[in-house]
């Protein structure tokens, strides 16, 4: 093995790639090599520039500067077509699928093999069957992609790349949407690819995955490569420190929970999504003061709908949500009314739901509280009060830069999230609902946000955290509910919860209720 690598030129070599988006220097002279027939990891914090550099390799973005070599030969990649021709395939962080097309149509797109579809379809069907056999990729070819679970959609993406003859396969954060078990399946698949002589470039920020499967790993921070090491010569802690640039606490610091009175009771809750599909099925649980309850589960198993129903953004079709002596469902209390009762919400999708990106920070800090008497003076809004409130929260939550008039889009992800958390937490709500509290947020801000949530718990309030990051659930929660297929399939106390147990439950393997 080792000999082979020294003999062959690297499958992919980047030389001094730079890319700037306006004010953001996303990549700064990035250079590294990927050995042929290896699985190479690329790791870095959110915003480190990983996706950008991979998009450059795939011809989706154009580098400002630098050179790309494939199999030792310099190639000019100025479009996706060039990349495909050079044998590069990519599975994007956000899938590039046409949802209302069938699998086979999606796979064919761009390589139809002729002006008419009919013959192309026949040929593609054959080729895909073979691919399926070779790699154990089993996908229903005539299913509509949008109706497939994400795990299968990902396989469609991989098939797409392989069908285009990819020798180098780039996967950008492929496991974010998978259960641990599905992730293991994916890794087995990657192993098979490596055996067949393909080169895999795995982009992630999860240390566990890097350690589990890669041969070599490149670490990026703030657009630059800061380290390149053999996986077997490193440790998670070392990688984490290289990623962040300082020593980090991989564990959340908190005292024991002291659960108090029951604050929120959910029973028999049923919720349909916009398409009318039942996404939450007869869900019931209780929240007590002084505890953080985590809801674990693979994305798309009803957590989002559950959270939206609790927050009042989506009307349930049945069931009860009792809070402060009222039934929120029967009384049809809207999100604003719930906030007034003391039920606050940090939404999962910050940019789309939690803020209005074109508004200033100051305007965003009254979102949901726009009718509050503090912010209004008679018919008009009290801009002075709004400004002062924002300035105060920015100071208290260490938001940088502390400029209330700055458009929210100009803040970094972490600071945007701090603003949202400030808005919702500062009022000390009785119950706080939080979705993906640290998605797209760097480690410094993660620590800060986690501390705020724990602070709220220690003040006797209840916090419900929904997250697809198991580490986060395990770090934060005092009690864990696992959702799969729209149901709560298990409840674990923090003490008894392990990654394996939760993983099994997430995959829908039920065990006896505790």
């Amino acid at each position, binding site marked *: 093995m080792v000999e082979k690598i020294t003999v062959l030129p690297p499958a992919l070599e980047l030389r001094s790639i730079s890319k700037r*988006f*306006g*004010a*953001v220097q996303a990549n700064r002279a990035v250079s590294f090599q990927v050995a042929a027939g290896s699985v190479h990891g690329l790791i870095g914090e959110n915003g480190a520039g990983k996706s950008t550099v991979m998009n450059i390799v795939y011809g989706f973005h154009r580098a400002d500067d630098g050179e790309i070599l494939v199999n030792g030969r310099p190639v000019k990649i100025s479009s996706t077509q060039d990349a495909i021709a050079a044998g590069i395939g990519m599975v994007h962080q956000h899938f590039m699928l046409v949802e209302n097309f069938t699998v086979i149509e999606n796979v064919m797109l761009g390589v139809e093999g002729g002006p008419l579809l009919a013959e192309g379809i026949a040929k593609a069907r054959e080729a895909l069957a073979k691919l399926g056999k070779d790699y154990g990729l089993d996908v229903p070819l005539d299913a509509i992609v949008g109706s497939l679970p994400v795990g299968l959609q990902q396989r469609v993406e991989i098939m797409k790349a392989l069908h285009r003859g990819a020798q180098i396969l780039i996967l950008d954060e492929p496991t974010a949407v998978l259960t641990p078990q599905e992730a293991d399946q994916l890794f087995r698949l990657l192993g098979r690819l490596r055996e067949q002589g393909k080169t895999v470039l795995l982009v992630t920020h999860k240390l566990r995955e890097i350690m589990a499967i890669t041969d070599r790993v490149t670490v990026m921070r703030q657009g630059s490569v800061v380290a390149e090491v053999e996986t077997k010569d490193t440790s998670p802690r070392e990688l984490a420190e290289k990623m962040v640039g300082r020593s980090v606490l991989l564990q959340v610091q908190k005292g024991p929970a002291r659960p108090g009175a029951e604050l929120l009771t959910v029973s028999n809750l049923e919720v349909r999504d916009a398409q009318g599909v039942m996404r939450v099925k007869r869900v019931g649980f209780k929240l007590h003061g002084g505890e953080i309850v985590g809801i674990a589960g693979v994305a798309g198993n009803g957590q989002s709908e559950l959270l939206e129903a609790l*927050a*009042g*953004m989506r009307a349930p079709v049945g069931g009860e949500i009792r809070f402060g002596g009222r039934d929120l469902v029967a009384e049809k209390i*809207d*999100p*604003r*009314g*719930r*906030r007034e009762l003391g039920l606050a*919400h940090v*939404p999962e*999708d910050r940019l*789309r*739901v*939690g*803020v*209005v*990106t*074109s*508004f*200033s920070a100051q*305007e965003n800090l*009254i*979102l*949901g509280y*726009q*009718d509050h008497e503090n*912010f*209004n003076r008679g*018919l*008009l*809004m009290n*801009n002075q009060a709004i400004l002062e409130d924002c300035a105060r929260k920015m100071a208290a939550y260490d938001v940088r830069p502390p*400029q209330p*008039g*700055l*458009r929210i*889009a*100009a803040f970094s992800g972490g600071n945007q999230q701090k603003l949202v958390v400030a808005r919702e937490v500062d009022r000390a709500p009785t119950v706080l609902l939080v979705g993906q509290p640290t998605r797209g947020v760097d480690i410094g801000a993660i620590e800060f946000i986690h501390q705020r949530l724990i602070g709220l718990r220690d003040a006797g309030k209840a916090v419900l955290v929904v997250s697809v990051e198991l580490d986060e659930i395990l770090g934060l929660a005092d009690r864990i509910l696992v959702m799969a297929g729209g149901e709560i399939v298990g409840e674990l106390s923090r003490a008894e919860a392990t990654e394996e147990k939760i993983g099994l439950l997430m995959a829908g393997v039920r065990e006896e209720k505790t």
Partner: protein
Amino acid sequence: MSTPKQLPRWADLILLPLVGLAAALLLSCGVIALLGESPWQAMRLMVDGAFGSQESIGYSLFYATNFIFTGLAVAVAFHAGLFNIGGEGQAYIGGLGAGLVCLWLGHWPFWAVLPLAVMGAAGFGAAWAFLPGLLQAKRGSHIVITTIMFNFIASALMTYLLVNVLIKPGQQSPETREFGSNSWMPFAHEILARVGLDFTATPLNLAFVLALGAAGLVWVFIWHTRWGYALRVVGQSPEAAVYAGISPSRITIMAMLLSGALAGGLGLNELMGSQHRILIDFPGGAGFVGIAVALMGRNHPVGIVFSAILFGALYQGGSQLTFDMPRVNRDMVVVIQGLVILSCGALENMFRQPLTALLGRRRKSGEGRS
């Protein structure tokens, strides 16, 4: 819209529209030259015709008054994320409201008629916008299509009323009798005469002041009230609105009502201010011009007032042009309008990029609302 490089705000608001305007006029000059007239002469005639005398100023501002109302109507809907193409029909029906008040109560004192007429115009205009708004909110019917259809339906309804119901007996023309003279908007020259200023008689009237007032109210409403805030949230992100407990469907309906009410204001100027009767097709396309006006004015009341004046000047200057240049006919003025909308509205990015490159060595980060 968060293009990495950004124009400074002043350039975005003032320079960019001016560059677009210049390009449109340049193209228009080309067409005029094709017609065998001197473009230079034509432009001079237009500018002179628009601003060269008290009369031309009066007419320019008179037309501008209509465009302020319809431009504001488009802008309010736009802030809520709605494209209201129905300004024409809403203005038509709104005018009916104002007109009916004047017909019935034209003998009342002006101070008593005015508020009722304003309510009539706003109320009828809003009512005509209500159904498209409701259908958009509740049924998701494409508002662009429904408002266009409502323009046609408004025309049919008005023709029916003017031919069969409201027509002044014994008369050919499908128009109502003249309003009682108490209900006429005081003309600008009358008002100015009272304070001792001499101004040529033009149709410019008190409605211009009302239009400016409406612009001021819209500004306060959109940026300084919680309802305007809610409206902007819905326009920018319906999801965020739901999150904030703002009902997008309710805001959609509210925005359309407001939009229709503003469009109805046209009747105050055109009917109460100038024609003093309801007549066929009196909005004369001002509802559509409002789209261009709102766009050029960046959907901001101040911008709308200025671009309405620009379009008023284009109208007045254009009619002067056709008056004095026989080979330039009235359709040429329509072409110029189209070109202005094209280069100021649709092609603005074409000018934005070179302008940004020209100006934008140093990008000022940090802007408030946009």
